C-alpha cells in the first residue's frame, strides 16, 4: 500500500540573482513499512525535501500525497491537524517540551487532540524505548540518547502513516546512535510504519530498505528494495 507519493517537488528560495533552487523536480513513492534513508552533503537540499514532505514548508511546485491525501491542497489549520495525526517527526535536536515529563511528552500529540492516551499503548512504547523508569523525568534530567528515544516515542504514539526523521543521530554518541537506529528499524518492521530518515552518515544506511541521494537539489535513488 502506497503511503507517500512525491510528484515533481521543487522548492526555490529568493528571486533574481539570489535565487536558489533547493529542490528540483523530486519524485518518488514509499510503501507501508518501508524504511528509506536520504543522504547528501550539507546544503544539498535533503532537509528541504523532508520539510516539504512534512508540510512544515510550502513547496514551490509539485505535490505530496500522504495516505492518498494531497498535503498542499489543505488549509494551514487542516494541515496542522493532519500532521499531528498522520506524521511523526524526529528532529536532530529532539525539540522536547521542557515543561512536560517523559510520559507527557510522548502523549503530547494526543493531548493536542484533547484525546486520552491508551495507557496500554503508552506502557508498550515506554517498554520498547526502555524508559519505564524515567516516565516522570523531565527532558532536562535525561541524556541526549534518552531524549531522542522520547522523541521517537512521541513520533510513534499516534501510529502515524509516516515518520520523518531529520538527522536523528546527529547529536548522539555511537552507542546511542545505534540504539536509535535499532528503534527505528523495529518501528518499521514491528509496527509496519513508513520511515524516511535524513542522514549524512553512510554507515547508517545499511539498515534502510531504500537509499536516496540528494545532490544540488536533485534526488536519485541509490538503492531500492531488494537490491
Amino acid at each position, binding site marked *: 500500500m502506497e503511503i507517500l507519493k512525491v510528484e515533481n517537488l521543487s522548492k526555490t528560495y529568493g528571486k533574481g540573482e539570489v535565487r536558489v533552487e533547493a529542490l528540483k523536480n523530486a519524485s518518488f513513492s514509499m510503501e507501508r513499512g518501508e524504511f528509506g534513508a536520504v543522504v547528501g552533503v*550539507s546544503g544539498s537540499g535533503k*532537509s528541504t525535501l523532508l*520539510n516539504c514532505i*512534512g508540510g*512544515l*514548508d510550502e513547496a514551490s511546485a509539485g505535490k505530496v500525497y500522504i495516505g492518498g491525501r494531497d498535503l498542499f491542497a489543505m488549509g*494551514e*489549520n487542516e494541515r*496542522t*491537524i493532519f*500532521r*499531528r*495525526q498522520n506524521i511523526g*517527526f524526529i*528532529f*536532530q535536536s529532539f*525539540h522536547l*517540551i*521542557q*515543561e*512536560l*515529563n517523559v510520559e*507527557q511528552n510522548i502523549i*503530547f*500529540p494526543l*493531548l*493536542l487532540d*484533547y484525546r486520552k492516551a491508551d495507557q496500554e499503548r503508552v506502557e508498550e512504547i515506554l517498554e520498547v524505548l526502555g524508559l519505564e523508569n524515567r516516565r*516522570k523525568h*523531565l527532558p*532536562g534530567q535525561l541524556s541526549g540518547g534518552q531524549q531522542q528515544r522520547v522523541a521517537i516515542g*512521541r513520533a510513534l504514539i499516534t501510529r502515524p502513516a509516516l515518520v520523518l526523521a*531529520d*538527522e536523528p543521530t546527529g547529536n548522539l554518541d555511537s552507542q546511542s546512535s545505534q540504539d536509535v537506529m535499532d528503534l527505528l528499524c523495529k518501528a518499521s518492521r514491528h509496527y509496519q510504519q513508513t520511515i524516511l530518515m535524513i542522514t549524512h552518515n553512510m554507515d547508517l544506511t545499511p539498515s534502510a530498505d531504500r537509499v536516496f541521494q540528494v545532490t544540488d537539489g536533485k534526488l536519485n535513488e541509490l538503492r531500492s528494495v531488494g537490491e
Partner: protein
Amino acid sequence: MKHYLDLIPISARLHRKQTRMTRLCIVLSVFLITVIFSMADMEMQTQMVQAVKSYGKWHAGFVADEEQGALIAARPEVENIARYGVVNWGLEDGYQIEGIETCICGLDGNLLELFPDVAITEGSFAVKEDEAVLNEAIKSRLNVGVGDTITLSTPQGSMKEYRITGITKDTALEAEHDAFGMLITIEGFDALHTKDTDASQEIIYYVAFRPYCSIPGTIRDITEQLGMKPEEVRQNTKVLALMFQSRDPYMMQFYFVAAVLAVLVAVAGILMITASMNSNIARRTEFFGMMRCLGATGRQVMRYVKKEALGWCRSAIPAGVFAGMVVVWILCGMLRLLSPGLFDGMPVFGISVPGFMAGIVMGIVTVLLAARAPARRAAQVSPLTAVSGNAGTVHAVKRAANTHLFKVDTALGVHHASGSRKNFLLVTGSFAFSIILFLAFSTAIDFMHRAITPLRPQAPDFYAYDAGYANVIPAELCDRLKEYPGIKRVFGRGYAENVVSIDGQENRLTILSYDEQQFKWARKDLLEGNFADAVEGTGVLLAYRDNNPLHVGDRITITADGTEQELPVAGILKDVPFSYGADQNTGSEEVLVICSEELFAGLTGEDGYAVLDIQMEADIEEEEVLEIRKEIEQTCGTNISFSDRRISNREVKGASYSMAVFLYGFLGIIALIAFFNIINCIAMSVSARMREYGAMRAIGMSVRQVVRMVVGETLTYTLSGVALGCVIGLPINRILFRSLVTFRWGDAWELPVWELLVIVAVMLLSVCLAVAGPARQIREMTVVDTIGTQ
C-alpha cells in the same frame, strides 16, 4: 570599521526589529518621567496663576512707618516696594459715594504691578491728591467715566471731590459684595485724615524680592533689624511655596507626593528596561559567546552592551520627551477649555523645562542603570556557549506542567508563567505594583473631592436678594430674565419664618420654596422618605439636623394668615446648599422646611421670591449683566441687593479642575504603566519562547492552541498580580484613606470598587492587546526558520 564598537551601528541597522521592544521600553520610561515632571510643573504653574490672581505677586508685607519703609526699600534684595492703606474695609464706616458705602484704598501706583488682577482697564492711575480710580461697579451703577468728577462724603462730615483718572476690574470680593471701591494716591489717602477714624488700618509696605535670593532669610532679617512683631509681617504663603521659598505643609506634601511618584515611575522604568534588555541579551548569548571566542574581554563586552544601550537613547529619548510634551499640551488645552479665563495665561505649546530635563537625565541614568545587569550577564557568557549552541533563554524547568487540571495548551501556558518561581514573583510583583500604586494614589482623589469643594450644580453666578428676606421679587421676573442673552438658568426661592409647637416646645421654623429644578438637584440628597409628595405639594422635606425633633411621617401644624394647616413630613434631605435668612446661616440648628412653590403660596399667601439665582454662560458680556441688573432693579426697586460670584466661581472651578487634571493624570499614568508592563512582559516572554513554539507547531500544535497557551500564561500573571495587588493594595488604601480622609472628615473607608474595576479593566484590556501582538507573530511564524532546522 576602525573600532570594535563600530559594530554597534551596523548590528543596530540589521537588527532593528529585534531591538524595537527595548527602544520602545526606553521611549515609555522617558515618556512617563517627562509627563510626571511636566505635570507637576504644570500644576505648579496653574497654582501660581491662581495664586497671583487671588493674592497678588508680592512676597511679604510689613506694617511699618516711613522711616522703616525707607530702610526696607534700600535693601538690595528688594525689587519692588509699594505702600498700601485701606479704610472702610467693612463697608459700614460712613465713607460714601452717592450714599453708597465705599471702600477706599490709598496706594503707590506700582502696587498695581504686585496685584495684576486689579488691572486698570481704562485710563491710568491717579497722580494727584484729588484724583481717583474707581471700580467697575461704581462706573456702571453711577454711569460715570474717566474725566468725570465724583464726591465722597466722609464720616467727619466733609465732602471731597475727585476727578476720575481710571477704572479697574472688580475684585472677587468686591463683585461678591457688590461693593464700591476707590483707589487714590497715598498722599490723597493721608489728606483724608483716616488716621483719626476708627475705620483706618495701618500702612503696609508690600515687597517683591529679587529672584534667587533667600526670601525667608531676608524676611527674618528685616523683622529682626526693625524689631517688628510677628503680626506686623505678612507673607504671601502660597506664592512663596510655589517658588520653593516656603515650608507650607500643603506644598511640602505636594512635593513629596511628586517626588515619591517620580521615584516609583523611575523604578518601574528601570525594571521595564532591564527586563527588556535582559531578554535582548539572552537572545544574543551566542553572539556574545562568539565575541568572547574571538578574544573580546568581559570588559569589552560590557562596554559594547552599554554603548549599544546609549545608542538606543539617541532616538528613544527625544521620542519619549516629545510624546510626554504632547500629553502635557493636551492637558493644558483641557484646562484652558474647562476653565476659560482662568488659565488663559498658560501657554498651549509651552515646554516644561523641569519635565524636559528630567526626561533626558532620568532617561540616560535609567538606561545606564538598567544596562548594568544585562551587560554583566553578557560579559559572563562563556566562549563555550557560542560553540556548543546551548544558549537557552528560558529558565530551567523544575517540575512538570499539570495536564490533568487544564488542557495541554492552557496547562503549558500556566506552567510558562509559574514554572520559575523567581520569574513568576518578579512579573506578578510588577503587575501587582501597578495595582498597589493605583489603589494608594486613588485615595488622593478622595482627599481632593473633600478638600476642594467643586462648584455645586446649583451654584449661582449672580444673585439678587432682599436684605430683609422679604418675598419682593415677583416670580414672573424669572420668565422675563430667561429671555436675556447669556442666561443659562434663573430660579428663585421664597422665604418665610414661622413658629411651631413640636412635642410641646416652641420651635422656630424656616420655610423655603423650591421650583422643579431645585427639587431635581435635591433628589440626590434625600436620606429617607418620599420625594414625590414634596414635589406635588402634599408634603414637605426637612433638612437633616443632629437632634431633629421631627421625623418622616410626623405632621407639622403651621399657622399662617390666621389659618392652621397640617403638613406631613415627606422626607429628610442630607443638605440644603443655599444660604438663607438675613444672617446667611446654613448651619443653623433651627428646623428648615422645603416645600413646593404652590404650597408655599398657599401657606404664606406670597408667590414672590426673597432670592433670585441666575446661572450665566461663560461668555456673557458685562453689558448684558448690567442689563439684567437694571431689569431686576426696575422690577424690584433699588433696595434690592446683588452678589456677583462669577470670579470666585471661576476660581473654585479652576482649583478643582487643575487638581483633578493633575491627580487623574497621575492615575492615568499608573494605569499606563500597568498597560505597558503587561504588553512588554508578554511580548518578551513570547519572543524568548519562539523556538519552542516553532517546535510545538512542527509537532502539530495549531496556531489557536499556541495563542491559547500565551493567553494562559498572560492570565496567570495577571490574575496573580491582581490578587497580590489587592492583598497589599487594599490595606494600604485603607490606611491612607483613614489618615487622609477619615481623620479629617470622619467618612468611613469603603471598598474602592470603582478604582478596582478601572484598574482590573485596564489590565484585562492590556491582556487582550498583549496577546494580540504575539498572536500575529505566531500566525506569521515560519516553522522551519523558527526551529532552525538545517
